[in-house]
């Protein structure tokens, strides 16, 4: 008995000693590296490994690396002063140096580029969730600093809100504050204004219904939007799958609007027969996903990221913004619109609610989320909001970055010979560096906003997804 009691610990100790410690192989010869624009994705006690977004290097095909940490890891702030390991937070920008060993990466030094004492963040978007004193605005978690107030604008001019529970869910908010170590943005000041159903929106929604030919609008499964035609996939199970997934992502505040509220968007999701990697959304809640996208996407969480992004464009009224800009600056979607013109398609013009609307413009309002037709700011906002929607629905947000890595991969010059990606490039104007940058910015967003989230509890839904799209293969 006595001897046995000592045998087990002894065996354990021996096993521990014998376990190969990859990162401790000091004598091995490695390839030194240094990256100026790394992002910390995960770095937590006991600080033996770090997940980093490296960007593209010649050292790895992946944007994200899981690196070992040298025992003598040196961390300094922007001014070169040494700081504690615990001050390094997900989402921070770092200059990272170390070496690539045969077994993996080893980080020897980190220099923080993000200012520790003043990590300023601007937040804008729709106030979508209230959770105690914490709110979610534009996909970011925010809380009011003590004494801070949000000023009312437009119809709320002259009002001042001292807590989020005084404010209206679904309204527009712009805030500025500082990000804390928990990812929460502490708001110093901001403004908010009501989300009204404007004349422009009414005109746009009416225009989207123009050009339909009664009695049968859905001639043989062809859906017309503006001057464009989309061929629906006549597969109810697939259609249902995409619709239900999309429906599960719609934010609660939208679902809780009264059914007769004009601001309530009834989202309708469609699978379109088209080999291009694309998805799009129109202000009336029509969201399309191409079969070309479904074939490239690997799991439910990735599709949720795409749909969430599209829903974000609608809830944040990017279509209306673009339309309004087009009236001051000239044309909507001039680039894509130009394609249609080049092909000799003359878009009919209709009068809606006293305004002459170019159906070609209307069609282009939905032009791909992934197409960079929206400004970079709107795209990032839709990305952030989409992340929020997918996490709310229980999906692992890291898969959103994976979508862009897939595109980056597909648009690499070496891979561009595939016909699908050639079309993708033509349609999306999504160059390889842009795709990579989007993936990185999503990674950074996840690290900052979802710090402390146990991603293992969130689903990716690969088997369900593969079952659902089996018919497309």
């Amino acid at each position, binding site marked *: 008995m006595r001897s046995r009691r000592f045998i087990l610990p002894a065996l354990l100790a021996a096993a521990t000693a014998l376990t190969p410690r990859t990162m401790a192989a000091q004598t091995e010869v490695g390839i030194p590296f240094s990256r100026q624009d790394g992002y910390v994705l995960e770095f937590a006690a006991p600080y033996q490994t770090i997940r980093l977004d490296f960007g593209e290097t010649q050292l790895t095909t992946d944007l994200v690396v899981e690196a070992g940490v040298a025992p003598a890891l040196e961390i300094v702030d922007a001014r070169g002063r040494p700081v504690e390991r615990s001050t390094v937070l997900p989402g921070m920008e770092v200059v990272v140096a170390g070496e690539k060993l045969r077994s993996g990466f080893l980080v020897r030094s980190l220099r923080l580029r993000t200012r520790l004492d003043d990590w300023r963040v601007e937040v804008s978007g729709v106030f979508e969730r209230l959770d105690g004193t914490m709110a979610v605005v534009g996909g970011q978690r925010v809380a009011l600093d003590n004494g801070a107030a949000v000023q009312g604008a437009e119809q709320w001019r002259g009002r001042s809100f001292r807590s989020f529970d005084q404010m209206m869910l679904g309204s527009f908010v712009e805030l500025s504050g500082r990000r804390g170590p928990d990812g929460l943005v502490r708001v110093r000041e901001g403004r908010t204004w009501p989300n009204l159903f404007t004349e422009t929106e009414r005109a746009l929604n009416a225009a989207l*219904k123009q050009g*339909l030919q*009664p*009695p*049968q*609008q*859905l001639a*043989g*499964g062809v*859906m017309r939007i503006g001057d464009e035609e989309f061929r*629906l996939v*006549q597969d*109810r199970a697939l*259609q*249902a799958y995409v*619709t*239900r997934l999309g*429906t599960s992502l719609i934010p609660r505040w939208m679902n809780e609007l009264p*059914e007769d509220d004009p601001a309530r968007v*009834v989202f*309708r*999701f*469609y699978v379109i027969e088209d080999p291009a990697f694309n998805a799009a959304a129109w202000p009336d809640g029509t969201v399309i996903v191409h079969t070309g996208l479904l074939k490239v996407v690997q799991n439910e969480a990735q599709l949720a990221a795409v749909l969430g992004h599209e829903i974000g464009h609608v809830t944040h009224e990017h279509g209306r913004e673009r339309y309004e800009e087009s009236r001051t600056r000239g044309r909507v979607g001039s680039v894509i619109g130009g394609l249609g013109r080049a092909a000799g398609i003359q878009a009919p013009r209709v009068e809606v609610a006293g305004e002459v609307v170019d159906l070609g413009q209307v069609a282009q309002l939905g032009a791909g989320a992934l197409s960079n037709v929206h400004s970079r700011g709107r795209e990032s906002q839709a990305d952030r909001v989409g992340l929020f929607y997918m996490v709310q629905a229980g999906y692992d947000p890291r898969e959103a970055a994976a979508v862009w890595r897939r595109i980056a991969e597909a648009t690499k010059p070496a891979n561009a010979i595939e016909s699908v990606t050639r079309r993708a490039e033509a349609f999306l104007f999504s160059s390889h560096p842009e795709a990579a940058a989007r993936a990185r910015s999503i990674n950074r967003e996840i690290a900052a906003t979802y710090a402390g989230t146990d991603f293992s509890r969130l689903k990716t839904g690969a088997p369900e997804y593969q079952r659902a799209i089996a018919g497309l293969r």
Partner: protein
Amino acid sequence: MGTRNTRRLCRLVLGLAWMAALPFAAPGAAAQRAHPHETPELPSDVSAAEVDRAAREAGFATAAYPYHDQPNACGPGDWRFHLVPDGPGGGVSFTPACNEHDYCYMGERDRGVCDQRLIHDAQAICRAAGLPSIPRFEDQIRHVGLTLEECLKTATSFGLAVDLLGEGVYAESQLQQRQYAAWLKAYLSVSALLFVFDVSGSMADQDRHRLNLEAADHVITLRMNQPAGSPKRRPAGVVVFGGECSPAAVRTITEITSDLAAVRRAIQTGIPGPSGGTPLSIARERADQVAADFGRRAAQTPVKVDVVLLSDGQDTCEGVRPAGVYGTAGPPRTGQRGVRYMTVGLGIEPGSAAERDLQFLASSTGGRYLSARSPELLRRTFTRQVRTYVPRRVPSTPGLDGSARRSFLAGALALQEGDFRTAADSFAAFTALHPGDAHGQYNLAQALEARDRYRGAAAAYRRYLATAPRAADRAAVQAMLSVLERDYTDHFAYQVELIRSDLAYLENYYQRLFDQDNASLAAEFRGFVLEKGAFYADLSDVLEIEAPWVDAAERDVGQSIQRLARRVDSPTFDRDAVSLLAVPIGHLEELVRALSAHRP
């Protein structure tokens, strides 16, 4: 003098107490609706004595004064009764005037007329009492005993008090009277029965034909067992159909006749064996004609005929439903021509075209459709089709307050009038407040049974037995419990099939979205929602399952169907449906899966 003033003070206090004791309840919705119902005239073939007996059996005191034991002198009729004086004292009682006032409330359209009459009657009592007239107040004070002037003043104050405060009592009295009138109407209008039997070839299967006739025989025997002079012994007739699409395929075996023994003989020996097709539409024409002939021959009008029509297949001739009618015919046109179709589908597929024909026949005539999934269930199905629900009239708990009694009466009235949903809601609310009231539980059970809520009905009958352990009908109710268990199992299986058929229908509809025109698709979906919306909105109630997954299905299916229903007028309906309809279909698939795994 001291004694006189004390007595006067007492009268004042008693008067105030009386006023306070009157119910203050605001008139409820039922009271707003309340209007006197004429008591129907007795038809020539129904004896007054029999009606009187039946009325007593049903819980009324007598047929002439149904609430003879209810007029309660001058009080509001509950524990406060004892606080209320019956008059100004001095040996003068207003009781006869108060009782007349109570009766007046039952029948009078204008409450003020009754209240004025009370003053008039009470003052007449004063005048007839030979009281000394002492007009001057100073003299009155010196007088010992009641004076005519004091008596008249008290009479006026009774009338004014009633006028001010009698609203609740009036409402209750009106309800009581309406209940009696409704009971009598229902009692007298027990309808002639016309059996219409399907004798098409398919009825030869599984003993269907024999069990069908046995079930009809059972119903006729029940009628024959009613006492002589009872309207429940009303006439019956028999029509059969089966064969080609010609009038020859439909035969009148017995015209509607009071000779129930002859009807019974015809059912036992005179029905031809099954063969040929199912000329349902021709049979319907014939049934209407037989009912009309009976109406012409009958002494009194209008006649009511319940056509109990059984079929096991789809019409093989020109069809029963007009084009574009899904199954039911919108709000039922009750009472039209007095002919109701009580249809029974024997072993036909839930949701099938055959079933929709029978549903249409029933709903377009104010009747009811029931599905008998196997021939063994026919007897029970027939009994359910001809069953009348007789509520207990008053609460079993003594001393309930006015508003509780009124809510009970309103529920009993609804049950009597066949508004089973209102009745079930009323008694559910009533028994929640008064769970120990046996009559409340009994009425709740009946209302639930009538609404096909068998599990809830059984539970309420059990509570009835627990609260009234010595009830005379204990054995009958106990026997009923096992019948209801079986009913529930059958009904549940039927509902599951129905949901499956809806799913199959919607899946087919979905395919048609791609090649049918928008307007007809929208109209069809509107019809579907009109008929099925209520069913899915009530799903957990219909299935009588309390489980989160049923609640979720009720919410998800209901909301997703409604979301699309709101877009039926949109020019983009068909394309909207491609996306939006996929959701309820998915929810229905899940529901069917869960129901298949569920063991009731």
